[in-house]
């Protein structure tokens, strides 16, 4: 991602919030609920299903664990995990969902899977996976929802026939500019922790944090994205354009996908506030955001407006 021009107010006593915005895009999104015999196995299934789902650039989808669910919140009364998945098209979302459920949830001991949205277009969850049962599958309609029951070696894999798909927002982001690696990691981790308390969002990168922020395009025609050189400390004195000053030695980014733009805004605000609350002495000196000049994505999240400034 490239960055818009910033207004820098380098007061040493507070973290500088750039006068810029994060630019986000419409995506297709769904939520599924995975339950298991205990929370450990639900987590394992969810982690497996959302593995290699950091970016649509090469993963096909972006997915992550939204939150853990207590037994009272799940359809079958077992502990569970809510997973959000985002893709650039309905077709790709359906493909990724089916593959990942088939290879990572169906295979995981004791799991069951249910749709997690009540409205939107239906996309298959267990609808096609049922054929794995080789004719032994049983369909069961309960309270208007159809479930498929597949005999498996630990008993029965229960999967709701469909989940629902909605229009989501992907690509909300914050960039934490810090004096060193420890400070940048600390800021990013604090932001991610705060954002995980916000419903309807995921931070799809490893641990919620990405160190290889990208810009659109490359000097190599085959590459659709390349390193965000303006934010690379190694290139501060080399690149044609840099966004960093000499004291910035490490930058971490948090990318946020949400079911609505309001959800993304809420998560970004929570992340901003968490890092600001730590103070500039914790080593994060500036917070910025990535955008494409406002020409590509319809959702613009202005950092200062999120904090109630200059609305």
């Amino acid at each position, binding site marked *: 991602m490239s960055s818009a021009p910033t207004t820098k107010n380098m007061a040493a006593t507070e973290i500088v919030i750039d006068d810029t915005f994060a630019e986000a895009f419409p995506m297709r999104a769904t939520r599924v609920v995975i339950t298991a015999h205990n929370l450990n196995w639900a987590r394992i299934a969810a982690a497996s299903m959302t593995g290699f789902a950091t970016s649509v650039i090469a993963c096909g989808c972006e997915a992550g664990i939204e939150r853990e669910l207590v037994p009272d919140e799940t359809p079958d009364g077992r502990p569970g995990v809510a997973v959000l998945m985002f893709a650039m098209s309905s077709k790709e979302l359906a493909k990724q969902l089916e593959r990942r459920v088939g290879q990572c949830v169906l295979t995981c001991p004791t799991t069951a899977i249910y749709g997690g949205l009540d409205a939107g277009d239906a996309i298959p969850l267990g609808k096609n996976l049922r054929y794995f049962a080789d004719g032994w599958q049983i369909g*069961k*309609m309960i*309270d208007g929802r159809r479930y498929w029951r597949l005999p498996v070696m630990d008993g029965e894999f229960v999967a709701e026939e469909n989940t629902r798909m909605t229009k989501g927002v992907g690509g909300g982001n914050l960039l934490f500019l810090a004096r060193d690696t420890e400070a940048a990691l600390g800021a990013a981790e604090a932001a991610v922790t705060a954002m995980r308390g916000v419903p309807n969002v995921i931070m799809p990168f490893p641990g919620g944090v990405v160190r290889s922020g990208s810009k659109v395009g490359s000097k190599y025609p085959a590459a659709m994205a390349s390193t965000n050189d303006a934010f690379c400390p190694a290139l501060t004195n080399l690149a044609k354009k840099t966004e960093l000053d000499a004291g910035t030695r490490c930058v971490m980014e948090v990318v946020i996908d949400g079911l609505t733009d309001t959800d993304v805004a809420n998560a970004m605000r929570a992340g901003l506030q968490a890092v600001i609350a730590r103070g500039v002495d914790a080593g994060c000196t500036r917070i910025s955001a990535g955008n494409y000049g406002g020409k590509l994505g319809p959702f613009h999240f202005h950092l200062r407006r999120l904090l109630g400034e200059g609305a």
Partner: protein
Amino acid sequence: MTTAFRFILRSAPRFRVDLQGLLPAADLSVTALGNRRVLHGHDAIALGDLFRIDEQPAGAEPAFSFQGDLSRFDRLGAGLAAGRIAVEGDAGDYLGLQMTGGAIELDGSAGLLAGCEMAGGRLHVAGNVGDYAAGALPGSMDGMRGGDFIIGGNAGERLADRMRRGTLVVHGDAGAFCASRMVAGTLAIGGRVGAHCGWGQRRGSLVFAGAAPALPDTFVPTDYDFRVIWQLLARSLAKRGGVFASLAARSPTRHAGDVAAGGKGEWWIAA
């Protein structure tokens, strides 16, 4: 604009009355309803001669309420797609025949073929129903094929014959050949069942919450961890109250059958 009407039976008719087509709608009036002619034996008779009809305060949806012994009135609510019908008393045969939506509340008992081929909506009979409830019309391949059917009392013979979809809950007993040739759906029984239960059952779920049935030779035990689907099923049925309210806390046994018809039907014995 929605409309609501009350029908108070003047006196019991001499012959059976066919109420096919008499359904709540938005554009009705007392006069039009009173002049409407229905079959009475081999003749037609004006509804106004059978009932005293008055308009009631309109609710959210069109509604009829009947008062009196309607046990000679057949096809009450047949083909209902929307609206509500409430009956204070008994009803005749074919109550809710082929209904697809809306709701029928009967606080008495119904005759033969109640809920026959119903495909949607909610049918609640507080009392008993006769034979062939939730079944198929003669010559038809499928019986009940959707919706919620709740029977507060007992059901006659051939309950849910060829039932294909939907949920049928009987708080009392069911007669012989219950769930015979059942294709799919859910049937929960709070009392006892008669002979030949599940004869030719192809798929579908029977839940026995009150008394354990005699197991036919064509049903085999299946012993595995089925708690997930049981919780989904039991929690849904628990909303019907009565003996079903505690189902989720029970540990049932499961049998599959009729193996002579594929063996994909199941009996949950949670008595």
